[in-house]
């Protein structure tokens, strides 16, 4: 490994605030669709047929894929489901809440 690789690998980011325990919700005067859409407003857990997962320090898409699907190579499935918040699959941040599609 060259010195540049080492430098790249050791690149430190500004410490990020921890928002992993943020709780959220919503309500409306408007009606809801007859077939309710998945409620993504929960902090974690199963919402309809979709789970959510809050990224913690040290996570990668591969690790999360391994945890939920038992196969790290299925990380593109997570990337695809979360394209609205992941532009670079090598860069996810603690506190990000990811949709976990069913295996």
């Amino acid at each position, binding site marked *: 490994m060259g010195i540049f690789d080492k430098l790249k690998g050791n690149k430190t980011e*500004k410490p*990020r*605030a921890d*928002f992993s*325990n*943020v*709780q*959220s*919700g*919503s*309500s*409306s*005067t*408007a*009606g*809801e*669709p007859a077939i*309710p*859409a998945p*409620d*993504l*407003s929960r902090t974690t857990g199963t919402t309809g047929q979709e789970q959510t997962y809050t990224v913690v320090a040290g996570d990668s898409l591969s690790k999360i894929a391994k945890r939920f699907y038992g196969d790290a190579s299925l990380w593109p499935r997570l990337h695809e489901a979360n394209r609205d*918040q992941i532009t670079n699959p090598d860069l996810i*941040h603690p*506190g*990000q*809440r990811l949709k976990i599609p069913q295996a």
Partner: protein
Amino acid sequence: MMTRQSGRTQLSAIVALFLVTAACGGSREAGAPATTAVRVTDVGLGRSVGGDKAITDRTDTFRPNDTIYASVATEGSASSATLRARWTFEDGQVVDESTRTIVPNNRERTEFHISKPNAWPSGKYKLEVFLDNQSVETKDFEVRGS
């Protein structure tokens, strides 16, 4: 002879006129997607909302232990519209992102709220509201330590 030919011509003209009219009516309808009728008219921030989901005490400065509410007013009707609230901190770190699908009927209000049991870090935050995946409004706010 004259009468028969002119009758046919008139009939053809009437049929053609009918077809043109029908085609125009059809294309006008097809060119009006239902979602264009819905728009966000107001986004407010505060520490609480009333039964009508409107903010009761608007502010853009919060304390670390506050629950932060956003109230999104919409106008218009549609069979479905999706509102999304994306809350970010300082340089864009995502705090929370919540989505709610509604069936708006004229004037509606939808509230989103976030809380943090062990207090918000002080600093500048931003709320971005999306309607059907289109960013429609942003609001800056601040959390100041007590």
